[in-house]
């Protein structure tokens, strides 16, 4: 296909793809009585957004989501990086078996194990706690796998050069491996943050307490509560999407790299 034709097809399809999101954004800025119009709004208003910000505890929801997303991201990066370093570099009996076991958990997704996971969390007293929102979300093989792939490519000499007498494995990891893997850690940080900010099913299942509602659960309950008051429901969804978009804009390059390399070859 000639370049110009490809460009035009690309522009048109790209605009069709984002049209629903642009529509959502415009709808939120419309006066309530024009909500379903397909013409340009007669004026733009912040009423819908202001109503949601003042009348709905969406701030609370956002804080909960932020606590959970940041905690999961930080803890997961530390633990996965340690595990991946050991699996890529340290020799110990059973390493291959452990690695295969970890990778095989990729097969099982949350919706499938939801019910037994709920029962486990219940027995551990994790329901309706922050720990219950955070802990089960940390452990996922994808990050371990990706980091291990990356650590296999770091030249061993770099690490051995730092192998001064008395420099234990912990310091080797922390002072050599972690700084070298900053780019891939940054990619995963964006990925983990987005995934956890957007998570719905587990928070929905693990919490009943409105004080612990994360933002995705919050807006889905609004949908039931406000029924046909679409303007408020939509305003809340737009507010909930803002941090995702910010994280995406800031971390786009990193995120794209992480996804591209996940294809593995």
């Amino acid at each position: 296909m000639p370049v110009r034709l490809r460009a035009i097809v690309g522009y048109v399809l790209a605009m069709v793809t984002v049209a629903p999101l642009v529509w959502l954004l415009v709808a939120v800025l419309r006066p309530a009585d024009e909500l379903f119009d397909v013409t340009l709004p007669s004026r733009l208003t912040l009423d819908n957004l202001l109503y949601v910000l003042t009348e709905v505890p969406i701030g609370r929801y956002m804080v909960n989501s932020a606590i959970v997303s940041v905690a999961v991201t930080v803890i997961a990066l530390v633990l996965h990086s340690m595990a991946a370093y050991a699996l890529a570099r340290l020799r110990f009996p059973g390493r291959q078996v452990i690695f295969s076991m970890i990778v095989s958990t990729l097969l099982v997704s949350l919706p499938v194990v939801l019910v037994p996971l709920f029962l486990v969390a219940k027995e551990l007293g994790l329901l309706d706690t922050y720990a219950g929102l955070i802990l089960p979300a940390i452990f996922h093989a994808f990050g371990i796998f990706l980091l291990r792939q990356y650590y296999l490519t770091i030249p061993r000499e770099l690490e051995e050069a730092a192998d001064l007498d008395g420099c234990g494995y912990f310091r080797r990891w922390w002072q050599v491996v972690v700084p070298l893997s900053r780019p891939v850690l940054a990619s995963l940080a964006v990925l983990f943050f987005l995934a956890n900010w957007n998570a719905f099913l587990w928070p929905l299942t693990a919490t009943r307490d409105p004080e612990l509602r994360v933002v995705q659960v919050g807006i889905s309950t609004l949908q039931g509560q406000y029924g046909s008051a679409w303007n408020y429901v939509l305003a809340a969804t737009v507010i909930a999407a803002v941090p995702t978009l910010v994280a995406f804009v800031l971390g786009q390059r990193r995120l794209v790299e992480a996804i591209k390399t996940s294809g593995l070859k």
Partner: protein
Amino acid sequence: MATVADPGTAVKRPPGAAPPVWNRRRREALAGYAFVAPDLLGLMMFVGLPMVLSLGVSLFSADGFGGYTYVGLANFRQMAEDTQLWQSVKVTLTYTVAFVPIGFVVSLGLALLVRDHFPGVGLVRTMFFLPHVISLVVVGIAWQFLLVDKQGAVATLLRPVGLGDTSFLGDPSLALGSLVAISIWFLMGYNMLILLGGLKDIPREYEEAAGIDGATAWQKFRHVIWPLLRPTSFFVLVNSVVGSVTGLQAFDLVYVLTQGGPAGSTSSVVFYIYQQAFTFNNYGYAAALTTVVVGFLVAATGTMFGLTKGGRFDAG
């Protein structure tokens, strides 16, 4: 290897002490276990244990308030006569059979379209990916708004072609199709990026050589790109199948958009299990269903890897 690591101390070691090589190996192994332990224990606790537990719980009738009664295989026998379950199996299969190939072709088409430079290609790629950044709850609510019967934007735009009164989410014959379309819209940019990563690794020279030999665009795709892209394609397809069957995207969308309706037409297996557990408190039955799904996934993936000789997406 480590045998030459420390020649100085190897000579001077006091009698009776362990050889340093062995000592070093042991230290390395201990460090290895210590580094893997937190993640491994976490995975055992929150992935492994639930899988094992589901097998155990499936032998009980559980009321959700801590009361468990042993019922043997009754939960498994119940499945045979559960028409709603079989309806949900049909929904999941239909969703998978529609979503996987169409989604793949769309993603591959987009990847080929934005593979080479044109002005603004970066922005176009970003725009294709954008839906994937938004949460499925927001996506679901947005589409519900767009698809509101008669008044919604889609109905208004399609009125001129006579589809103004079509209920895309309310008509049992259309709801699942709408879910598939929304899922593709959500996921196409993500798979496009993975495929772009695969396309990058195909040396240009191959296509140029084929071009010199007079190959058409289709022939280049069929005989150069397609075979060399196979590992990436396989990865995307496996991912899509697992994602479809396990409701990775569909669960949130079904929950927000249709709640399994109308008339059970969008109630997938994972949604049905969710309802059995959390709407009807049939935890034992839900656990039995979970066990079957896990068993099915293990068998299916094993078969797929066997058929494709390991899938070759791990080996260089």
